[in-house]
């Protein structure tokens, strides 16, 4: 099963490589990964999506918790949560396809953020499956380039991941 694990870790050089290294060292899988500082400059938040059965996920969280640079973590998929990913896509937009692309962008509540005579650059946010669906819809028109941020997430309700 797919899990989204969010980690608060020391904003220190080398901390990221310890987390990433752990996954390859222990033969765990990383689907997506993103990391950025938080409102507290001493902390970074890293979100990783991974796939594994309960035993593997238990091992992943235990080993992550063991890393000295990891301060706190949560498996967001254990409860209700919001999952978002940002994607920028360059798609071909020539002739009749130009309108078709625009319509699809509207259907997906995406935005065109850059335009040239031959292509559109589209910005779209949502969960991973929405982004996948958009890519599928655009495939016949011609996708030129894709940049995805990887999944970020946060728990719904009063639950807060902080120190």
């Amino acid at each position, binding site marked *: 099963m797919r899990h989204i694990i969010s980690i608060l870790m020391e904003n220190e050089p*080398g901390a990221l490589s310890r987390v990433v*290294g752990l996954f390859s*060292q222990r033969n765990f899988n990383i689907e997506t990964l993103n990391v950025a500082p938080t409102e507290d400059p001493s902390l970074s938040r890293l979100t990783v999506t991974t796939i594994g059965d309960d*035993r593997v996920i238990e091992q992943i969280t235990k080993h992550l918790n*063991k890393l*000295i*640079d*990891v*301060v706190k973590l949560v498996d967001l998929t254990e409860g209700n949560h919001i999952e978002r990913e940002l994607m920028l896509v360059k798609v071909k937009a020539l002739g009749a396809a130009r309108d078709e692309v625009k319509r699809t962008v509207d259907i997906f509540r995406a935005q065109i953020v850059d335009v040239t005579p031959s292509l559109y650059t589209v910005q779209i946010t949502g969960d991973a499956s929405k982004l996948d669906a958009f890519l599928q819809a655009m495939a016949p028109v011609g996708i030129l380039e894709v940049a995805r941020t990887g999944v970020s997430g946060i728990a719904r309700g009063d639950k807060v991941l902080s120190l």
Partner: protein
Amino acid sequence: MELLSGADMIARFLQDEGVEYIYGYPGGAALHIYDALFRQDKVKHILVRHEQAATHAADGYARASGKPGVVLVTSGPGATNAVTGIATAYMDSIPMVVLCGQVMSHLIGDDAFQETDIVGVTRPIVKHSFSIRHPSEIPEVLKKAFYLAATGRPGPVVVDIPKDMTAPTERYEYVYPKKVKLRSYNPVTRGHTGQIKKAVEMMLKAKRPVFYTGGGVVTGKASEGLTDLVKQLGFPITTTLMGIGAYPQSDRQCLGWLGMHGSYESNMAMHHADLIIAIGARFDDRVTNNTSKFCPTAKIIHVDVDPSSVSKTVRADVPIVGPASSVINEMISLVQGQSIAQPEALAEWWQKIDGWRAEREGKLYEPSKPGDVLKPQEVVEALCRVTRGEAYVTTDVGQHQMFAAQYYKFDKPNRLITSGGLGTMGFGFPAAMGIKQNFPDDDVVCVTGEGSFQMMMQELSTCKQYGVGVKIVNLNNASLGMVRQWQDLNYKSRHAHSYMESLPDFHMLIEAYGFTAMTVNTLDELEPALERAFANKHELVFLDVKVDPHEHVYPMQVPLGAMRDMLLSKTERT
């Protein structure tokens, strides 16, 4: 307020931390530190002949004393030479602090002379690592390094120190930090009371219980408690290779050690048990054999200080995360005044175990006939007699390691010093050196083989420099015995590169360093030679004992089988 250079801070910190010995080898990036060590006389630096030996010596010291071992090496090759020793300590959870010189910080990343990203190289084999970014950080970082190395599940910590951080001209305030805090590191100090209660209830009700305890009991200094608990309950106990001596092996309740080359009765008891009480052991593949066939009828209580060890390879029914000592003490207080529910079932269980014991009694190996080449097993048995079972025994890796563990009887913890997890050839001799320097009045013997010994024999020079009186028992079968054994069993005796052509004349080699060497060929020479070797505690003596190259280590678990599936000799199996 005291102003010190980074290098002087390091020397001063080591003094304030109570470090007696530091093992190392100088080089460009570490020279400021070496100069600071030279200008003081509290911390003694031992100059090894290879950085790997520095880590093994510090490791041996740490295992025997329970205190962190300390290593100092230079950047680049100095640090990479230390890698095998760091990995050895990591796999066996041994506290160690490794100080590595590094090129000047403005050169990092430029492929400077003797530059290696040692923090990167060692990342998967350390508990944690630090890079010094300002000299003023040194006292606190070092305190954190020692604290991390020795607490929780112990392990090696690397501190990378760019040369400019130790420059003699730059001075900063030095205060010895008595305590440090890491917000993300709070090792557990006790187990969950409810879980411990549940575990004790299961223990009291068990019909066929067995304790299975590991290195965590030794490093967690919980042997006394464990012995009390096991004696009170009257249960059988088997230990891992790393856990040997945590419970006295000469006691009837001790079944020896378990796993691939463990005793027949240990492996049989594990397989047939209805309750396994695992403490400070990690169910590794050399113990469990095939996990899907592992102990089919047993419930499992698993006590470990490291949560990630619990249910890693074998699911625990009652997981307890906590230090062995405190959990055992809580168990003792719960067991006191209670009696086991089914004493007749336990008696029956013991009958069964005694039956297994009797089956193998006197059949473990065939002793040599007069005039024949010696069996390695009888050499270890003689060694045990001569040293009254009280020596610190270090080993290298291979058949001799298994024979040492099988035939020397250890009644105390921290006495068998062996590379269990990583299985590092070359470990034994430098480890013995580190122990002997710290326990000069004890017998310290390295049981080795001619393959392993040649991996670290340059340390004879170190022993000469510091007058280290270790004894070396070389079980010389002129082949890489364990490799050869596997080739006999799995490759139709095609001995690909497992024999040692052109062995040196060990006698002459040892004498070249000014030490005593003896060659032993027959049984009647053996004990007198051992007696002579151990007569003087402060003299290095090397015994080159010629042993049977055809001998195999048994029992040996059958690959992919259950605990009980074993080869018992070249012709028998379960």
